[in-house]
């Protein structure tokens, strides 16, 4: 089977699963997107070496590695305390109501998008909440696609930071 066909099949079967796993590992909606992307890219590149057995486990293993690297990089960026024994111990959090997780996430996302300064608020809401592409947004707002793409990238960074700062699930 062609690599592209295998990728499409893997996306059909496991995109939601890998994205959800990445979210559970990082608790960050945007980091989960980036890590899901990295996971499938790494999977695509390694297809020639992959024997095709246990695809779910293979993808999850790649995702776990990507998330681990990401979390370790984030830890290194934070300043270490002088007294490690006083470092904050994060206690277990109560689980959310499972059936409303998706809805709560979308609501939070919308709020965060609207909290950005113009023109990022409109672009962020259109792209992240209504799933419009940069081309569609550019056509709607009569602007250059490149400008919209840059604004989406900047909005994503801001939202990523805002998401981390908020106390979330």
């Amino acid at each position, binding site marked *: 089977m062609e690599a592209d066909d295998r990728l499409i099949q893997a996306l059909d079967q496991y995109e939601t699963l890998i*994205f959800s796993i990445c979210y559970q590992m990082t608790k960050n909606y945007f980091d989960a*997107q980036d890590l899901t992307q990295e996971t499938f890219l790494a999977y695509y590149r390694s297809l020639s070496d992959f024997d095709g057995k246990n695809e779910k486990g293979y993808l999850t293993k790649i995702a776990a590695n990507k998330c681990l690297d990401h979390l370790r990089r984030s830890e290194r960026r934070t300043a270490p305390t002088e007294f490690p024994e006083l470092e904050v111990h994060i206690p277990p959090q109560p689980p959310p109501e499972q059936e409303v997780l998706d809805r709560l996430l979308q609501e939070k996302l919308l709020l965060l998008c609207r909290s950005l300064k113009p023109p990022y608020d409109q672009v962020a809401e259109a792209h992240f909440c209504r799933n419009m*592409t940069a081309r569609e947004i550019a056509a709607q707002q009569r602007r250059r696609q490149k400008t919209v793409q840059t604004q989406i990238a900047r909005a994503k960074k801001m939202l990523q930071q805002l998401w981390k700062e908020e106390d979330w699930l």
Partner: protein
Amino acid sequence: MTHLSEEKIQKYYQNMLDSRERMEVLEHAAQCSACSERLADAIPQGLLLSPPLTLRQNIQEQCSAAHTGTIRPQHAQRTVPAHPHKEFCLYTAKVVFAMGVAILVAFTGHSAIDHSPEYNGHYTASPSSGRTYPTEEAVSSISEGISKLGQYCAEALYFYKEDLPTNKNKQ
């Protein structure tokens, strides 16, 4: 290797593990395909999140770019030019030419300067035309910067030292 227990996996999804225990689960899943599959199978239905529609498109675009070579693979070797000496000479000539132009532009206006009272160490203005020009010090620092940049670029392009003209080679 101690595998993940069912209880631990359940607690992981119930958010009943502390940060250290969560990292342990992650670290083990990163090494063990069997346990990573069990972790994937155990995710509750209610925790499955719908990814944004643009994510799939982004993934396919990135993979397509990786396939065509637009995105450089992670561990690609940097290539060395076929004729590094010739390339180095060409590059040096370009840098020297650019420096010459910069100095020429600077000194073309320099003669019109009448030691204006607006002198600020970097720029000075001609009282007759009102135009501002960089001072000699500014031009020197620009030239120095361009030289350093040229040196840095030459090193970054992996030119071999033995290909550079030296006194020994000339003899």
